[in-house]
């Protein structure tokens, strides 16, 4: 009996007037020379959303991973790239062990070849080669397909702290004079709320709070990259953190950490993006965190969330966002004054060997953060 992949290969090959082998061979890992053509395809698909330095971004994301010559796949038809599927090789910690996995992202198909099922077929092709494939988030075009090929885990809760009211009020009140009139009261209310939440939230006395202005120092302190948050997570190893947050072009990340006798016990990584949404809002994001001890974990993480938020406020952030999944992080975020937003988003898991009873298919078992998406 033919596998799903073989069945769809036959149909797609016929639709594109190729034989099956030629179709499979047309899907290949991209080379550095393909970057301009991939970027041009992204411009055709995403138009204005593609940034000016897209080629530099592609070079970093897909050709800069230690141990991998390329991590983006392309589909070539008549010597022209008509589709691409980016991947991020990761190490997944689950059920007490580490397993290699693949995170899919940046799936694009030339509009001329839309509705042929090429995106689904490329995804199946990678599932055919890898035991475990993950996708964080989906869009209106991809969610239906992802639901067919993956197990959807309805998690990733969104939280927010408002530091300055003008953008919050901008969404609620149309008239500028009304906003100007009432913003001092709202600013006072937000500030008072945070001051109350932040009372007595310092780190335990035996720990030292450290601010990493140079995030390059952080990966060097990682001893155990797995940590104690959640039962399933993408491992943030030294090499991964360096690639993800130190080497990324055009972005700056900072971190706060808690040291226990000179050893890194916990960290929180964050960044700020200017010009987001309404009237150039300055949006802070807590993108990743880690803790290596369950003792006082909520208190320690809450202290670090607060320290990161205070630093972002100093750097001009109007609000700070956080997405999370696990229970300890959620308690810490609430304790630090973050407020739940009704903006849950899915992520998708495929595993060729594990049964539904594995932790990997249990939504509550996962650690997730902005760092698990390609939006950071």
């Amino acid at each position, binding site marked *: 009996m033919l596998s799903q992949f073989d*069945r769809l290969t036959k*149909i797609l090959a016929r639709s594109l007037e190729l034989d099956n082998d030629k179709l499979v061979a047309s899907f290949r890992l991209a080379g550095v020379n393909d970057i301009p053509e991939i970027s041009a395809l992204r411009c055709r698909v995403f138009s204005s959303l593609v940034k000016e330095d897209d080629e530099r971004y592609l070079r970093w994301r897909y050709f800069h991973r230690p141990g991998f010559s390329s991590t983006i796949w392309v589909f070539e038809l008549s010597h022209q790239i008509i589709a691409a599927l980016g991947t991020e090789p990761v190490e997944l910690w689950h059920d007490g062990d580490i397993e290699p996995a693949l995170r899919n992202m940046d799936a694009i198909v030339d509009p001329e070849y839309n*509705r042929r*099922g090429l995106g*689904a077929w490329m995804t199946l092709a990678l599932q055919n080669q890898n035991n475990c494939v993950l996708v964080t988030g989906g869009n209106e075009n991809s969610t*239906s*397909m992802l*639901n*067919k090929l993956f197990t959807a885990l309805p998690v990733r809760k969104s939280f927010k702290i408002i530091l300055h009211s003008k953008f919050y009020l901008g969404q609620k009140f149309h008239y500028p004079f009304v906003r100007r009139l009432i913003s001092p009261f709202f600013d006072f209310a937000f500030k008072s709320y945070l001051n109350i939440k932040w009372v007595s939230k310092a780190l335990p006395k035996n720990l030292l709070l450290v601010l990493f202005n140079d995030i390059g120092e952080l990966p060097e302190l990682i001893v155990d990259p797995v940590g104690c948050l959640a039962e399933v997570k993408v491992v943030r190893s030294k090499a991964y953190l360096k690639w993800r947050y130190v080497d990324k072009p055009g972005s700056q990340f900072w971190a706060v950490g808690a040291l226990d006798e000179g050893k890194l016990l916990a960290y929180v990584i964050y960044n700020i993006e200017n010009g987001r949404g309404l009237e150039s809002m300055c949006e802070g994001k807590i993108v990743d965190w880690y803790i290596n001890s369950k003792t006082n974990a909520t208190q320690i993480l809450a202290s670090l969330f607060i320290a990161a938020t205070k630093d972002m406020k100093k750097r001009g952030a109007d609000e700070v966002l956080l997405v999370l999944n696990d229970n300890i992080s959620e308690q810490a975020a609430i304790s630090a004054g973050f407020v739940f937003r009704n903006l849950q988003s899915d992520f998708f898991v495929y595993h060729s060997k594990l049964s539904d009873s594995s932790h990997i298919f249990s939504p509550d078992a996962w650690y997730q953060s902005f760092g698990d998406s390609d939006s950071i």
Partner: protein
Amino acid sequence: MAENTMSRKDALELIAEAINESVDDVQPGIELVTLSGWDSMAVLLLMAEFDDQFDIVLDEEKINSLKLVDDILAVLEQNNVLND
């Protein structure tokens, strides 16, 4: 009569399964675009199902002409698959 035939009810179940929808939603009169599972993968799965089970080749022109669940049933009828 085609070698492999089925009732309309079974045909609706087969279509629903191919496009990952509840059979309650896949009924005559329903516009395909209103089904959340009707996407490019559903089209590919439906083409594979028709090819495997009935040797029916759906080309791009035919696929583009499918607007209603009834249009898919009509393809099966034209190929003598429906037996009621």
